[in-house]
């Protein structure tokens, strides 16, 4: 599983750390609000045909925090610059949770930046019904536990199991602090985003949600489906906020089919 490398790119005065791995058509991946969980099975499964480019979010430990980035929209602006400067556009994107919020801001500002847009349990819009679960007034352990329907999932254990090392604890706290800094209020959504998303036309969009997701409610995905022209929503049964590790086989198939379309 070592077919990936860590690289640096100087983008907009930022020393952006990137994970790159796989071969083929570039696939821009945006990790969630807890940081990049590591290169796992689903990455490997897609790496045969897709070259992952995964920026590690500023302030999450590897890429230094950028004071001028004060919102998800600012961060989206930075990542859009990164995509353009790396000559990736238009690119396929797969984005998870808060990463989905970033991707949505990117496509709202520039619909031509993405070929295919895949949002997995995306935050960013106020749910039509329900609330995005508040990740801040809980400890990291409680938060992690809630991201899966079944904590017995083997890959969940291999990523997060065992005693947390001081380095892991610090990395999680960095990620939580940065997510709070840019997503505290309004909480992990942007009220103007649905209006801007209505300007997105002809971007094939797939919305994936675990049916047992306890972080992002179905109402969030419904709001995206309503806002983005032609967006298709898929629900994976018996999994939570991390369908990519709880049922990676089905997840990979759905993604492969969509990207090949």
């Amino acid at each position, binding site marked *: 599983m070592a077919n990936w490398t860590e690289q640096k790119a100087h983008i907009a005065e930022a020393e952006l750390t990137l994970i790159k791995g796989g071969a083929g058509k570039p696939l821009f991946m945006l990790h969630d609000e807890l940081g990049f969980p590591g290169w796992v099975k689903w990455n490997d499964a897609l790496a045969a045909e897709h070259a992952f480019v995964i920026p590690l979010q500023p302030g999450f430990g590897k890429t230094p925090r950028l004071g001028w980035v004060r919102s998800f929209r600012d961060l989206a602006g930075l990542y859009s610059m990164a995509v353009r400067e790396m000559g990736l556009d238009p690119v396929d994107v797969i984005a998870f949770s808060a990463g989905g919020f970033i991707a949505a801001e990117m496509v709202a500002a520039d619909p031509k930046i993405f070929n295919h847009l895949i949002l997995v349990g995306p935050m960013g819009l106020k749910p039509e019904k329900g609330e995005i679960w508040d990740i801040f*007034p*809980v*400890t990291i*352990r*409680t938060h992690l536990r809630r991201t899966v329907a079944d904590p017995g999932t083997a890959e969940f254990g291999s990523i997060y199991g065992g005693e947390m090392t*001081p380095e892991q604890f*610090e990395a999680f706290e960095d990620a939580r602090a940065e997510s*709070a800094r840019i997503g505290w*209020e309004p909480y992990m959504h942007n009220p103007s985003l649905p209006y801007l998303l209505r300007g997105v036309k002809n971007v094939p969009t797939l919305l994936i949600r675990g049916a047992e997701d306890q972080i992002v409610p179905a109402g969030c995905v419904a709001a995206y489906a309503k806002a983005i022209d032609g967006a298709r929503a898929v629900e994976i049964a018996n999994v939570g906020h991390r369908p990519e590790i709880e049922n990676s086989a089905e997840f990979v198939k759905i993604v492969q089919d969509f990207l090949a379309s």
Partner: protein
Amino acid sequence: MQISYFTERPYRGLDEDEILKNKAYFAVPNALFDREQAANDYNYYLDEYCYAEELGFDAVALNEHHGNPFCMGSVMNVEASILARITNKVRIVLIGNPLPVLKHPLRMAEELAEIDLISRGRLVTGWVRGAGSEQFFNNANPAYNREMFNEAHDFIVQAWTKPGPWRYEGKHFHYRHVNPWALPYQKPHPPMWIPGVLSPETARWCAEHRYPYLGLGTALGPTCDLWDFYADEAARHGYQAGPENFGYLIPTFLAETEEKAREIGKNFVFGGGQNAFSRPEHTLPPGYNSKGAIRMLAKHPGGSWLGVSPEKLRAQSDEGRPDTTDFDTVRQKLLKGYGKAQKNLQLLIGTPESVLPKARTLLRVLRPSIFVFFNIQGPVGDEDRKTSMRLIAQELTPQLREYAKEIDLVDPFERAPGSVAYRNGVTRDPVVDREPLAALGMAG
């Protein structure tokens, strides 16, 4: 020496089991609130502060917490305004207004100026960052807490001292027209004392601004370390720190007999006491703490900080499992802590005779010129509270004042903090006396 009287103004109508069930004071549901109880408590505490003035305390101190029956002062400036009018000579010390949580420094400048004017210059204003739980209560972004604290403070000082009107475009605050008509009675502005629980960042900031730092019942050894840190920072800024730079708040309960004091004194751990102020997940919001503090918490598995140990953090993750808490076992544990805190001199409980040597030790070791007595917590009746105040004021304080004079504890009104020059190359004067710590088993 400034002797001050302080109380958290606890809500006295809450069943302890409700706090234990919630595992903290913060987030106890307000369906349990009783307006008659609260109305009685608020009025009583104002009367109690007047009684403190009558007894001869130099100052009365107020604080502020939000959504928490541990402390009824949810808008401290309201109480301070009333006290400004109904007291005559005590200083009114605010320890302190939580600037990042309140988010409106111009209004704060106006409110405090009014209090200083009504009291004719008796206000001592202090600032805090606000407890972790207050970031949630007030929806204040914890990741900007320190930045907002610094910016709000700097803005308020300007609003009080720089002739208006002027425009302000900061990072977190923006004002088109800064020209408060009511300016403080004291010039250039009221003195500022800064309370804290041993954050080195706050101590560094205090030393830089030459503001006295008040340890809030903090453990003796680490408090000495922090005083030294402050004094080293002060030397870097060109002055010698002294007693005028330090204050200490000590929970104290006195009664006519040892037995009664010990029995009623247990209310300092009512519901878990200070350590049960809020649950770990509310105490440590993301981004609220410095990188250094987080690293310390991560690397010291046995350590405890702000009452939050890694064990408590782990226990919190048991969310959702059936609660098997046996309250009697919890109470037994709390009582052990009660005994330990007395041994460590973080609680003074007893008669004036038994408490005097302990209070003298605190003065000798920490050399604070501001000494704040914190009255009992829990549902303790008015008469017992007042008896303790009277014994402190009439039987303990006169002897402490004498001792303070003897060991030269000069206060901030006698010598301006930061006014003694430090000469480069000369070893700075000690600010603490650690010698008694060995006998208390706290050396090292």
